[in-house]
């Protein structure tokens, strides 16, 4: 990539304070400024630091290729800032405006400096636009990535949270299922259940599907797989929480649970489990 000679750096150095002041005003006046999340002092500190870093980076003479090593401190700073902003709950627009609102102050100074030289002015504005757009897009992209990380982490947590295995009595486990039983969930459920069967030395496991909104063939198939796996480990499974509408739907679908004991409610299943285990509760 050819390094373009630009007067951008001169303008940055000459008007650092003015640009910073204008930029602050732009940001605060903007509808995307979140006073509730970021104080003016905090914003000023961030803006000043970024200004400083951009000036240092552009001193290298390269203001077009931000993947070059001299721009790394700027990118690192932007990455850290957008990560914090993503975690604080800023929107993409609010985060990207941080960079894009720098355009106006820079362009204003350029106009002042280059005045009537329209050709040079257009050229300089173009260079500055390209640079700031790249930085802005980088910020938005990092922000997006951070959000995706947050979502992925929450998904993982949800997966763990929603599949508890409870030891309800000596030798009896209860596994209340909430939500949809897709292949990924089934894997987690199965692993949790089998591990708990071993750990607690249980012989009966009650799988309660009261919290499963719709039982389709995939859910049924996954339930059957889980029951079969538990059976291989010597645990007897009872499926409970089959509501009337689910029972009807399953009959129409043609799904059969074979010789698996099914009960309408968890209470019925527990009663049956007690009988099987020879436990009497008085």
């Amino acid at each position, binding site marked *: 990539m050819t390094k373009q000679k630009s007067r951008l750096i001169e303008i940055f150095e000459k008007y650092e304070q003015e640009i910073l002041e204008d930029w602050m005003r732009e940001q605060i006046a903007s509808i995307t400024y979140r006073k509730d999340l970021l104080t003016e002092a905090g914003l000023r500190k961030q803006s000043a630091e970024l200004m400083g870093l951009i000036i240092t980076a552009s001193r290298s003479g390269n203001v077009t290729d931000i993947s070059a090593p001299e721009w790394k401190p700027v990118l690192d700073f932007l990455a850290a800032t957008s990560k914090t902003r993503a975690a604080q709950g800023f929107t993409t627009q609010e985060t990207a405006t941080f960079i894009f609102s720098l355009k106006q102050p820079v362009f204003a100074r350029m106009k002042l400096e280059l005045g009537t030289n329209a050709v040079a002015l257009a050229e300089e504005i173009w260079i500055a636009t390209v640079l700031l757009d790249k930085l802005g897009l980088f910020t938005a992209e990092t922000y997006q990535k951070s959000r995706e990380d947050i979502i992925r982490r929450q998904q993982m947590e949800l997966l763990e949270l929603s599949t508890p295995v409870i030891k309800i009595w000596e030798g009896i486990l209860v596994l209340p299922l909430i939500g*949809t039983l*897709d292949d990924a969930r089934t894997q987690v459920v199965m692993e949790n259940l089998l591990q708990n069967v071993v750990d607690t030395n249980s012989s009966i496991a009650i799988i309660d599907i009261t919290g499963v*909104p*719709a*039982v*389709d*063939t*995939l859910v*049924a*198939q996954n339930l059957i797989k889980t029951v079969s796996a538990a059976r291989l480990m010597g645990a007897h499974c009872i499926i409970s929480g089959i509501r*009337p*509408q*689910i029972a*009807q*739907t399953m009959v*129409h*679908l*043609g*799904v059969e649970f074979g010789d698996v004991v099914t009960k309408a409610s968890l209470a019925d299943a527990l009663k049956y489990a007690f009988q099987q285990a020879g436990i009497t509760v008085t």
Partner: protein
Amino acid sequence: MSQKEPETIEIKISEDILRARQSVRTCMVDLGFSLIDQTKMVTAASELARNTIDYGKGGTMRIEYPAEEGRTGIRLIFLDHGPGIADIQQALKDGFTTGSGLGLGLGGSKRLVNDFEIRSEPDKGTQVTVTRWR
């Protein structure tokens, strides 16, 4: 009852099945269908949406609100441009599958709805239309 606008939902990834199911449920609640009817139609939608992804390589679901002969209902049209179904009669048979499922989805869906129509052309795609009347 206010007239609802038909809508089309993309069915591309497995999360879309969830979205499709929720949309169908919301629409049916709005139309005043019973819980049993809701569950049946939602389950059929779930089966057909999964078929759209697994066998049709993704497509769309359209929700319509037909009204004829003084009755109203909900109609779902699943459309894909996948490889199509070679033998529809065989595909509708319980226990038949070219995948790894139970082979009950298509035939089961037919039993869960009032009207069922399937059209398929090899290499062109498949369209399944299901209707449930109030």
